[in-house]
Every structure is written in structure tokens, then in C-alpha cells.
């Protein structure tokens, strides 16, 4: 980290070596940022640096991180109970970037959390970790324990007067917990349904106290921004946005995986250069660029730069930046059905359109895929895509996210839908076999 890396997030990750311990981490440039921040920067200066770095939330929504912090009341941590929460509830289908960071270099997250906590003056840190990430849980606990032992966590860190500690909350599996307000509700030991805003978490979050929820990848960027400066970070991006991004590809590509690349790397480059293109015998038909809740884009949009603005212009969202590939031998309706099954099941059950609309969609797709679809079913799918897709109609963004692949799929795969209904069967046969 001393020499500013082009892939700062993952430079220290070496699967063969396992996650670095405190000493290794420090030798590789770790703790510099924390030392600098706690030693000579004010919270306001950190917020300013992060704001200028153009860092945007890596969880999918893409909200400016510095901006988010600015809403937090400014009292010192010692005077007001505040929380800094790492959102490690990575449950977006097709997404496996945070696990890489958590398992690969948990101390980087710890340092990022110290910086964020110092910036917003929160004394309480929580990692909200999805329950299935058991290896990450073990490594995180080890890292936190070590950091605590070395004085990086606890009372009066580095004699700065700032105290901060981290507690790991292992969740028990609910996609909606990734939504920041539902995450807070879950931490309170309640049924994790989202909350209305206001109050925003920054002013009234966990147990009513000011709380900041940042994605793991977002937090992991912080040490590098503080050490190397916001301009360096902003310069890493290829377009509007700053920094690197972990991109990934799954599906029938030659080498599925995840890579840290400059934000704004063109999609085609990610698929062809890093994922090795399609497996032989398979053609790329369409893809979800950033997880299950992003809209399909087809091959005509492959040259899109993978940053927040560009992907949106192409009709989808950057989301988590983890693409899922639909090949030509997989039934697109089967794929959408799989997605909608997921969204219907993971609906928290709070608001009517999501709770009762998504299962209807799932059953329509079941029928079409199973060969019992009717012409009117298309109207119903259209209606749901319309009614559930627009923001503000459902309580949170779950249903609009669910409608992204459906609405785009209805357009992109219109002929497939018609064929299914007319032939009374799936032309691809059920599902897809190896």
C-alpha cells in the first residue's frame, strides 16, 4: 500500500497465504491510514477527503459515501451513542465480492471501519454478516481479536481519545437484511422489515441512535483513500466515478470469477479478457450486469462502461457489479422464473404489492415455463412489471429490483414467451443441463 496499488482492495489477498495477520498487514502498508487519521486528521477532514474521492456505495445503490456521513450529527463519540455498521449481508444472487474481501483481508475492513467510525464519531461498530459466511465469520473474529489485542480497537485508540470496538452479528439468512433499514431492525432482534424514512439511519437508526451502514467494499476502500489521497482514488476510475470496483462474472463463461478493476472498465473487457469469454459451444445471449436485481442487457450493450451512470444509460444498473450471464442454451424464462422465485421468497411480507404480487408473478412464470401458460398471462406479467417496477409504490426497493429482470426480460425475450405459450412447453426443455 506504500506504493499506491492499482488494485488496492485485493493487493494483499493471497489465497495461498490466508488472510494477513496484524504484523503482515502492517508491513504491507496497513494501519497507516488509521494512524494518520487518529493522529492528525479531524473527522471533518476525513469526511472531506472521502467526499472528494468520489467514492460511492458499493452495495448497489451508489450513494456518495462522504455525503451519507455528512447527515450524521456531529457530537463526539463520547457524547452520543452512534453506530457504524458494515453491511456484510451479501445475498444478492450472483454476487460474491464481499466474501472475497472478508475472507481475504478482514483487517482491511477493520481499518476501514475505524476510519469511518472516527469520521462519524461512532463508538460502536457492528459487522452485519450473513449467516452462511461461516469461514468469513471465523476469520473476521480472529482479525478483530488481534486488532483489539494490538490496541487498534477498544478504549482510547492510539491515545487519540477515540474509542471504538467491533461486534460481529451473524445473521440468519434474509435477503432483505441487506437493505439498510431492515438490517437495523434485524439488529434489534425484530423481524427484519424495512423502516420508513425519515428518520434516516444517520439520525435515527439502531435503537433510535445515529447509525451509518456502509457496504464492506465501500469500507475497504477507505484506508487507501486516506493514505493515498482523494485525487489518487478519483483518478483510479476510468470515467465519472472514483476508485476500483470488484467485478465478477458467473454463468457459462470460461473462467467465472471476480477481479478488482478500475471502475468504469467496459463490460466486454470484463467478460472477454477476465472471464475468458463464453465456454465453447455457448453463445452469450444477455446478462444481468450487477446481480439479480438489475435489468437484462443484451449483446448490443456489451461495450458499456461499468460505472454507475453508464450502466444506467444502457437501461440497467451497476448494482453490485457482478454479472450473471445468460447463454443461448439456457431458457430465459426459466432464468427469470428462478429470479422471481427468489424475490417472492425473500419478500419480507410487509407491503401488499411485493408480498402478494411477486408470488403471482412466480406462478405465472411457472405456468408458462411448464407449458400451461395462457395468452392473458402476458398481460398479468406486464401489469406486475408496471405496477411493482416504479419506485415509491412498494415500501422498499425489493419489488422494483425484482421487476428489473422481468420487465427487461419481457421486452428482450418476447418471442420466447410467445413460443412457450403457443407450443405449450419450454423449447429449451426444463432448466438447462450441463
Amino acid at each position: 500500500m506504500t506504493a499506491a496499488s492499482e488494485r488496492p482492495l485485493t493487493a494483499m489477498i493471497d489465497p495461498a497465504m490466508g488472510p494477513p495477520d496484524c504484523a503482515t498487514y502492517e508491513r504491507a502498508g496497513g494501519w497507516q491510514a488509521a494512524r494518520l487519521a487518529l493522529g492528525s486528521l479531524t473527522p471533518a477532514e476525513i469526511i472531506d477527503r472521502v467526499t472528494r474521492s468520489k467514492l460511492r456505495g458499493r452495495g448497489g445503490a451508489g450513494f456518495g459515501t462522504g455525503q451519507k456521513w455528512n447527515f450524521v450529527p456531529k457530537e463526539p463519540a463520547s457524547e452520543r451513542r452512534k453506530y457504524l455498521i458494515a453491511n456484510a449481508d451479501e445475498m444478492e444472487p450472483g454476487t460474491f465480492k464481499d466474501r472475497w474481501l472478508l475472507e481475504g483481508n478482514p483487517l482491511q475492513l477493520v481499518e476501514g471501519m475505524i476510519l469511518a467510525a472516527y469520521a462519524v464519531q461512532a463508538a460502536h461498530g457492528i459487522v452485519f454478516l450473513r449467516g452462511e459466511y461461516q469461514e468469513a465469520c471465523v476469520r473476521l473474529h480472529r482479525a478483530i481479536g488481534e486488532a483489539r489485542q494490538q490496541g487498534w480497537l477498544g478504549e482510547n485508540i492510539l491515545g487519540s481519545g477515540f474509542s471504538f470496538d467491533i461486534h460481529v452479528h451473524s445473521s440468519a439468512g434474509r435477503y432483505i437484511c441487506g437493505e439498510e433499514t431492515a438490517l437495523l431492525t434485524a439488529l434489534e432482534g425484530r423481524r427484519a422489515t424495512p423502516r420508513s424514512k425519515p428518520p434516516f439511519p444517520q439520525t435515527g437508526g439502531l435503537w433510535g441512535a445515529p447509525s451509518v451502514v456502509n457496504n464492506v467494499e465501500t469500507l475497504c476502500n477507505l484506508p487507501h483513500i486516506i493514505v493515498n489521497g482523494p485525487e489518487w482514488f478519483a483518478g483510479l476510475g476510468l470515467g465519472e466515478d472514483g476508485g476500483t470496483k470488484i467485478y465478477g462474472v458467473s454463468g457459462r463463461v470460461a473462467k467465472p470469477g471476480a477481479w478488482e478493476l478500475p471502475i468504469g472498465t467496459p463490460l466486454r473487457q470484463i467478460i472477454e479478457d477476465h472471464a475468458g469469454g463464453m465456454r465453447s459451444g455457448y453463445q452469450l445471449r444477455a446478462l444481468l450486469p450487477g446481480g439479480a436485481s438489475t435489468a437484462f442487457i443484451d449483446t448490443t450493450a456489451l461495450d458499456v462502461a461499468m460505472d454507475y451512470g453508464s450502466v444506467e444509460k444502457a437501461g440497467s444498473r451497476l448494482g453490485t457489479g457482478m454479472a450473471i450471464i445468460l447463454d443461448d442454451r439456457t431458457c430465459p424464462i426459466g432464468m427469470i422464473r428462478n429470479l422471481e422465485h427468489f424475490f417472492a421468497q425473500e419478500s419480507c411480507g410487509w407491503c401488499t404489492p411485493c408480498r402478494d404480487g411477486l408470488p403471482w408473478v412466480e406462478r405465472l412464470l411457472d405456468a408458462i415455463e411448464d407449458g400451461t401458460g395462457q395468452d392473458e398471462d402476458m398481460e398479468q406479467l406486464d401489469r406486475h412489471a408496471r405496477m411493482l417496477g416504479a419506485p415509491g409504490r412498494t415500501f422498499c426497493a425489493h419489488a422494483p429490483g425484482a421487476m428489473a429482470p422481468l420487465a427487461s426480460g419481457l421486452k428482450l425475450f418476447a418471442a420466447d414467451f410467445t413460443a412457450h405459450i403457443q407450443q405449450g412447453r419450454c423449447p429449451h426443455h426444463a432448466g438447462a443441463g450441463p
Partner: protein
Amino acid sequence: MTTIRIDGRDWPTRSDINLLQACLEAGANLPYFCWHPELGSVGACRQCAIKQFSGPEDRKGRIVMACMTPVSENAIISIDDPEARDFRASVIEWMMVNHPYDCPVCEEGGECHLQDMTVMTGHNTRRYRFTKRTHRNQDLGPFVKHEMNRCIACYRCVRFYRDYAGGDDLAAFASHDNVYFGRAEDGTLQNAFSGNLVEICPTGVFTDKPFSAVYTRKWDMRGAPSVCVHCAVGCNTIVNAREETLRRVLNRYNTDINRYVLCDRGRFGHGFVNAPTRIRTPLRIIDGQQVPVPTADALTAFAHMATKGRVVGIASSRAALETCFSLWALVGAKHFSTGQTRQEQECAELAHALLTRHPGALPTLHEMESADAVLVLGEDVCATAPRLGLSLHQSVRQASFHTADNAKVPRWMDAAVRTLGSECPSTLHILTPAPTDLDSVAAETFHAAPDDIARLGFAIAHEIDPSAPPVTDLTPDDAARVARLAQTLMAARKPLIVSGMQYGSRALMQATSSIAAALARTTPAAGLSLVLPECNSMGLAMMGGLSLETVMEQARAGEIFTLIVVENDLTRHLDPADVADLVATVPNIVVIDHTMTPLCQHASLVLPIAAFSECNGTLVNQEGRAQRFFQAVFPPAPIQAGWRWIQTLARGLDPSTLPVTGLIGWGSLDAVLAALATAFPGLAPAAMAAPGGDYRINGEKLRSQTYRASGRTVIRSFVSVRDQPPPASPDTPFSSSMEGAYEPDMPGALVSFYQTPAWNSVQALNRFQFEIGGPLRGGPSGICLLSPAENKNTQARPYTYTTDIPPPYVPQANVVLVLPDTRLFGSEELSMFSPPIMERSSAPTLGLPANTATSDRMMLHLEDGPHVLPVKPVPGLPADTALCPAHMVARAFRFPRMARLEDFPGEGERT
């Protein structure tokens, strides 16, 4: 106030409400489910979607949930917007995906909010062609039926039950479209307000179980505005009847008292009216046997008795003012007893005196909800005045409202306010002998003997106003507690001190009023509230009369020849020995009651009186509010109202012997009230509790059935197919049928059911208010007889504090201080004749301080003999005290008293 534009038309509206309220108040038909005026907004159902435009130029607008959007200056919205309409139709369609089409057999049918809203959105064809999810239903106990398949998951039930009423045994389970609302396992809902689920649920998931057994459609029932008779709070109710039988009790909105909520005792206590214990004919002792006799026979018998010697009348605090007064008119003031022991009577009269003298406020239940510091002194209000307890429960939210105000979050934004308030301290302080259900939401609770609590109270009053007498010999702990509580109360803008006569302690009530008066010197809003035991305790206290002790003395002296006891089971007041004395010394006991109480077996004559649902009358609640109840049932002769019975008895006597000459001539309730006003000027306004029997709207009586009522002829077709004229009463302005006037702005005291075009469920109530949650359009129901305003001039007349401070409670050897364990279900007289309440009441136990019981069952020696009771450890109960269920062990049980307690012979030592 501000103005908003709804579909092109400007409406003045309040600025602190949401758009849904604003639309409803403007008279618009905007459907909704999860929002409730008392529960606020959470945005779950998404039914109230409307279009909001950013300005006059904005043609596109955006869909918003009206309930989640605050009214803003000059907001432009559209309900009719096609996109909004489409979305609302979709929302209903989603709700109906799993909803069964069982309206014809559903007990909610005809008064179902979901039906209304479905019709309102125009959804009428099922397009969902797949399988519906199904759920298993639970047995939730004797009050509430459960049919989960009907659930539309609006979350109102759990929000009401948990957030509002403080219950914890109803929850939402599972997730997505499989969410389930019920209990973890089958079993009786424990919260005292569970019955409100019936009205809170917008469809038929939770329905009234006792009503189910005698079910009939809403539109076929006659309604009558009524007043609950099961405690002294005076909640307003609607009684429903068909075929001249009472079917159910519903909440009737009174903005000052119960508003949207009744307790379960009030909702399900009415079963005594139709119980087998009901008296339906006169009974007379012939040859040692009590046998039914014709009315004429009974009257002759009475006339005979009355000529033989002195007639003394015993009234009752559960009888209407008119009944008590007519008895007073029959026997004369000198021979009129309140039917209460001296202790009860003194307490009730003291309550009246203290309230009248109080220089501060006498808050209504609704005003109590906004008290910012509450101190309860020695009264388990959750048992003695449950609805008042619920208002105190709401008061603990005040701090969270202030936090929300600071965060610019509207108070109706319910979930948000609860989030913000999750760390706000409670403002409720409870000093009682035994734990209460409110303890869990209190900032501080402290348990001590009643006298010790009174001493703390007097000390607090002295701390606030040094001119109040001091209390000596307080322990340092108590002194600190006193200082802390005084500080808290003085810092409040709207403090409230509550006590009552549960422990029969004058000192407790005096200490309470001393604190309230001390606070009122600097805080005029300082409120005082005193809980009384029965529905007309205050009315009777204002009339006054002999105590039962005096009657006993006269009886023992052989001065009483005939005793007329009206609606009073003396066995609840007098020890068995006293009752035996009375029976032995008084030749004739005439009981006029509706229910075969234990006293009836001693009566030489029993006359069947109309129950509250069968007659009209006035009750004065504990805050001094006179309220009228009306009949929904026209009972078959000889059952008639109490005052009519007494009038009938009087007609058999020599008119010259009657102390009030008009008695015989009274033709209607209004005439009784006019005479009452002359005899008791303090009670004169009671006549204005509701419009008189001659009140008309546009020359018409008020109808008490919906215009859809059916079967008028068919019901009695087995007798005759001829149409019978509907029954009528000169006492009320109601027609007993569907004929007559009915409008949302008719007088508040005369609303007999809620229904307006398109709104057939209880939600139609919104149309009866100008401002939702505010007063009724037609004005208040009832009238206050006590006016604290007269005491405001505190400079002129300094408050006289009582100096009668009791000494500390000192335990005595070999005895325990027995205190009443007043129970929500079990202690109140009439509700215990109601089958569902009987089922809900649990067996008597003996409460002892935790870890002091030496065996599982112990023997308590009371005046009427030993009682063996299972022991229930009560954490926090003061040492050397015992809790004994009131009226459930010894029927007449006066508190406090010392009693001997010993191990039950034959029981092994506790291991």
C-alpha cells in the same frame, strides 16, 4: 390550517396531518387498510396511493402513499388519476389473491372494511388462477375467533395488540406471502383489550366469539347508544339486538373517554343479560318456596307489606340515577341508603369532594394520554379501570413524541416515532402495594403497604408545596424517592396523579389530591383522577344516603319492616353474619334486580328489572360525567326499568305517604330527570346528558336500524304473519325500526350505529367527525357535572391540605395485612355472570411475597371462616402482606384487614 387541491378542488385542511386524513376529512372516498386513526401510519398496505404533483405545471406527478405523506402548503393531489386508480385496484386484487370468497358465511360480512374497499376500487373479477395459500386457525380463547385465511396482512392486529395495548402474546410469524398473525401456540389471548381486534381487523380474521353463537348481520340488528356498566370509567358503547335479545357490544366513539377502544370486560361482560341467572318474572315466597307469581300478585303483596311498617330503600352504585332517585322518592331521604358500607361511601364521597376542590385539571382519559409525568398511587388501574390504564400506557409515549417533533417527524408516522423513541425514558411512576400490568412500561415502581404509600404521597406534596404538612420519620431511601418524584412532577408541564378506592384508603386519595393540588399552584394543568368502583358510584355519592351500617343498626333495632333493595347484592358488602342478621330482623326483603344474586334467596319478593340494554337511564362516571344509555331491547312484561317498577309499587300505596308526590305521575324518563333536578340541583345537568325523548330531526324520530334491516314480519311468522307495529318508548327519541332520521351530524349521544354511503364497517366513524380523532360532528356525548374551573381562583382560597397523615404500617405478629387482589375478570360483579368472562377468570389464589410461602396451599382466616387457597408468589409484594382476590374468596370482603394465615394441614413442607 392550510389549503390543498384535491382533483382540482381546493380544500382547507389541517397542516399536521397526512394526506389520507386530509382526503377523508374532505369527504373523499380513498380506500386504506393499515392506517388507523389511533395507530397512525406505517405504509404497509399501499392501498391509499394517490398522485401528487410538484406544482401546477407538473402534469405527470408521482404516486405516493397518502397516509405516509404529510400535508404541505398548497399540495396538489389527485385521487381520480387513472394511474393511481389502477394501482389501487391492483393492490386490492393482490389482497384478494389469497382471500377466500366466503363473505356469505363470514361474520364480518356486511360490516367488512375489506368488502367496502373492494367495492370502492371496483375490483370484481378474479384473475389470479392459481392455488391460494391456506393457514391453520388457532383457538384464541373465549373472546376472539380466528380465521387466518381471510388475512390481508395489514399488520393492524399486531400493531394494536403489541404497540398500542402492550400485549406480547400475539405476533407476526414467518414471512413473504406466508405471514401469519396469531400466537406461538393455541391459547387464550392474555391482553385486556384483545376484543378490540374484532374492530381493528379490517376483515374477518378476528371476530367476536360470543357474538358468533348468536350471530346476526349488522344490518339486521337494532343499535342503541349505551354506556358500559362494568366499571366507573363510563366507556361509550353500542349495544346491538335482534329479536329482542342483546347480541353484542361494540365500541362507541367518545373523544374524551374510550375513543376507539374498549376493554374485554366491557365488551364481553354483557352476557349477564341473557344468562340463565336472569330474573324474568316476579318471585314470591309461598309456603317457604320462592315461586313465580303474576305481577298483580306481587304488587298486592308489596302493598300489604308497605302498610305494616317502615320501608327502607337500598340503592346501588350499579343502578341508574333514575332508579336510585325514584327509590329515594318512594322511601324518602331519611330511609334511603346508598347500599354501600360506611367505608365505601366515605371513600366515594371523599372522591367527589376532592375532585370538586381540586384547583387544577380533571383530565379526561384522552387528556391523560398526553400527560408528561404520571404518578399512580396505590391503585391497580389495569384491573379497576382498565381503559384508564390503557390511556396511562399511551402517556409513556410523550417523550418519543417530543423527540419526533425535534426530528421533524410527524407524530402519526408511527413506526418512525417508535424508532426514534426507543430510548426515550418512560414518564410513568407507580407506587402500589402489588405489581400491576403497567409496571412493565413504568420508569419506576415501588411496592409498599397502602398507608406507607399514602405517607410517601403526603411527603411528595410537602416537597412540592412546603405549606402542605410534612411527613416525619421517612427512611433516607424514601426521602430520596420523594425528592426525585417531586422533582419529576414539578418539571412536567402536564403532570397527572391517579389513585382510587381499590384499597379503601382515604389517606391514599387525600395524599393523591394533596400532590395534585400542590402542583396546581404553579402548574394549572396538574391533573387529578380518582378511580371509583362502579358505573354510578359518583352519581350515588352526589345523592348521598344512609350507609349499610346505619341500615343494619335500624334493622337490629327492629325499626325496618320492609327493605327494598334495588340492583344491589348486599352479600358483596356485608359479611354473612350481617346478612343473616338482616334477614332475621327485617320481615320483608324486596329485591328488584335483573340477576339472581345470592341475596335473592333471602327475598320475600323479587321483581325483574330491565338490564342496561333494555331500558334508558343515566350514569355518572368517576370524573363526574353524566351519560345516557338507551335501550336496544324492548323486554317482555313484566320486565321494566327500575324507576317504572318503583312507580308501579308506589301506585299501590296511599299517595299521601309518598315523600315526593310527583312519582306516580312521571310519564317518561325526562319527567324523572326533571324531578331529580329539583331534588338534587347538583345533578340537574344530568338531564342534558342526551337530548330528551321529544328530540326530533326534521320532525322525525331517529332510526335505530339500518335501512337494510330485514325480516321484520318473518321473525314472528310462526305466531302471525301480520306486520306488527314496532315497539316504542316515550323515554327516547328513537324509533325502534329502520324508519326515521339518521345522519353523521346527529347528536353524539344518539349515534346508534356507524354507517354512511360506501362505508359499512366501523370505519364509517370517520364520517361522524369533522377532524378524524376529534369530537363528533353532533357534539359531545354526556355532560360534566364537576367543574374544576370554579377552583381556579387559588389566591383567594388557599388549598386546605389534610393533616391526617397515617402512621407507618407496622407488621403485627401472627397476622398478615390482607389486601385486595382486584382482578380484571373475577372481581367485578355483573361480568362474572357472563359466560365468556367466567371462563376467562382464573381460580382464586393467595398472593404472598416471593419466597415467604411455607407450603403450596395455605389457610387464610377471615371473618366468614377459614379459606384454603393455593399460594401464588408475588415478587415485590411488601413483607407481611397477602393478596386475596376481591369478592372471590369471601364474597363480602372489606379491605384492608388483618388476618391469620397458617399452613394448610396435611400439606407437606415446600421442598
